[in-house]
């Protein structure tokens, strides 16, 4: 948000050469019939937001869940910070499409749940959770229950929970797909602001071309089943400007158009 924070981010994306997440020759089969992913090779540079974009059934969520360690790969490997992934780890945090909040727990307990599972004492974990609840713009809702919140607010809790465990990599599985359009745009803008404060590597699954172009440093286009990497696009849009300016930027509009031309063949 501040000029200093912006400068930090500029540096971090400048030396983004070192990948935090590496995907090597990854393949995934469900049973003997369905081949979800084939031969995926990808690097996710530190501090960048990479979107996985593609039509439904291209295996983008599957890829994200394999990186998260929630699903085993059929072949190939994933490395995070040079370590081979065999399951979930403390350096990765997941944001779920359906929020996955505990209905019986308040906002603050939900946001602190990752820390609760790690055995962090109550006072400490709630302090951290309150900090991130504030950061995602939910101050004042700490003691509400999820059913009292709108979809957008629930996902903010999901994001606060992922931020609270202080992971290097945030994995976001279509986080805005169950959020209405206005809140979705607001949330996207807030996510861009948040990135300037929190230096995280983000991997973002979406089926919205505009969302991917608006948010991403890199966009990985996946082809339909079996999912393969068909193209990697770097939008090169300066994000220091206002959201409206970004959405009217010619580079933004051209990138959306290019991706659409690439994907329209896959539409039914």
């Amino acid at each position, binding site marked *: 948000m501040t000029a200093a924070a912006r400068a930090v981010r500029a540096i971090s994306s400048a030396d983004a050469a070192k990948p935090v997440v590496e995907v090597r020759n990854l393949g995934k089969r469900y049973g003997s019939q369905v081949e979800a992913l084939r031969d995926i090779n990808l690097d996710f540079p530190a501090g960048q937001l990479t979107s996985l974009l593609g039509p439904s059934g291209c295996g983008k969520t599957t890829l994200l869940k394999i990186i998260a360690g929630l699903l085993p790969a059929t072949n190939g490997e994933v490395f995070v910070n040079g370590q081979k992934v065999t399951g979930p780890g403390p350096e990765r945090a997941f944001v*779920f499409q359906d929020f996955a909040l505990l209905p019986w727990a308040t906002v603050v307990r939900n946001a602190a749940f990752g820390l609760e599972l790690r055995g962090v004492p109550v006072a400490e974990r709630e302090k951290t959770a309150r900090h991130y609840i504030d950061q995602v713009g939910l101050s004042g809702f700490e003691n509400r229950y999820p059913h009292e919140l709108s979809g957008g607010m629930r996902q903010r809790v999901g994001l606060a929970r992922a931020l609270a465990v202080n992971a290097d990599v945030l994995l976001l599985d279509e986080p805005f797909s169950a959020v209405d359009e206005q809140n979705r745009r607001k949330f996207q803008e807030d996510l861009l602001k948040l990135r300037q404060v929190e230096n995280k590597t983000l991997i973002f699954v979406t089926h919205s071309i505009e969302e991917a172009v608006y948010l991403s440093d890199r966009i990985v286009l996946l082809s339909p089943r079996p999912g393969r990497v068909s193209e990697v696009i770097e939008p090169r849009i300066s994000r220091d400007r206002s959201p409206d300016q970004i959405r009217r930027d010619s580079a933004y509009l051209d990138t959306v158009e290019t991706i659409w031309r690439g994907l329209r063949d896959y539409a039914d």
Partner: protein
Amino acid sequence: MSVQTNSQIAGGVDAAREGAATTATSGESILLWRLASIVLFCLAWEIAGRIPINVAFPPFSEVVMAFGRIVADGTLPAAFLDTLQPLVIGVFLATAVGIVMGVGMGLREELEWAGVPVFVVMQAAPMAALIPLITFIYGIGLTAKVLSVIILALPVIALNGYKAVRNVSPSLRAMCRSFLGSRRQEIFKVILPDASPMIFAGLRLGISAGFVGVILAELLITPTGIGDLITYHRSIANYSEMYAAIATIILFAAITVGLLERIEIALFRPEKKEHA
């Protein structure tokens, strides 16, 4: 309330579910309507008894007086103690075993294969038909009564526990794993709280089945407790006393099942407190 629970003993366990659904949405006006429904029911009973539709059907007021008499002479309290002992032991055992088995079957495939078919058969079969068999094996003592409570209450508790665990949101479980929750944490912090509404629904059905079991046992095999009180007063044509005993046990069952829901909300579901 007594309208609903009348059918519970006679008709089966579905009425318990209905009773549970109505207690969940209570409020001032709902309470008022319920009271009105009870008053109306008692009034209809009074009128029907005064017509009379049957010599064996006394009006409500006489049943209330008879209730006073059997409380005063100590037969009702004594009968309750007799009935409650096997009921409490049986329900306690069925709850403990049922929940452990049910949750176990939901969590582990081996247990699922071994257990589920047995409980499905037990639930589908008219288990009351086995009560004479139990008498044959265990005689007419406490054991037989406890067993008849268990065979009626256990299947529904275990199967509901199993289904409850199976219906736990997969995304909540994945969330717990992704934030490095251990298996133990997953079970206690996610699966059990998420499954608790269905587990408790099973408990409510199980407890009302337990009431059926104990009364059946008392009517069929061991002439003691409330069952004996009912049989005895029927045999000497003391119909008011007979109805008083019947109504008391029905009311008692209804209150027990209602209390259970409060316990559930207090223990597992704080978010429902303000709506309950």
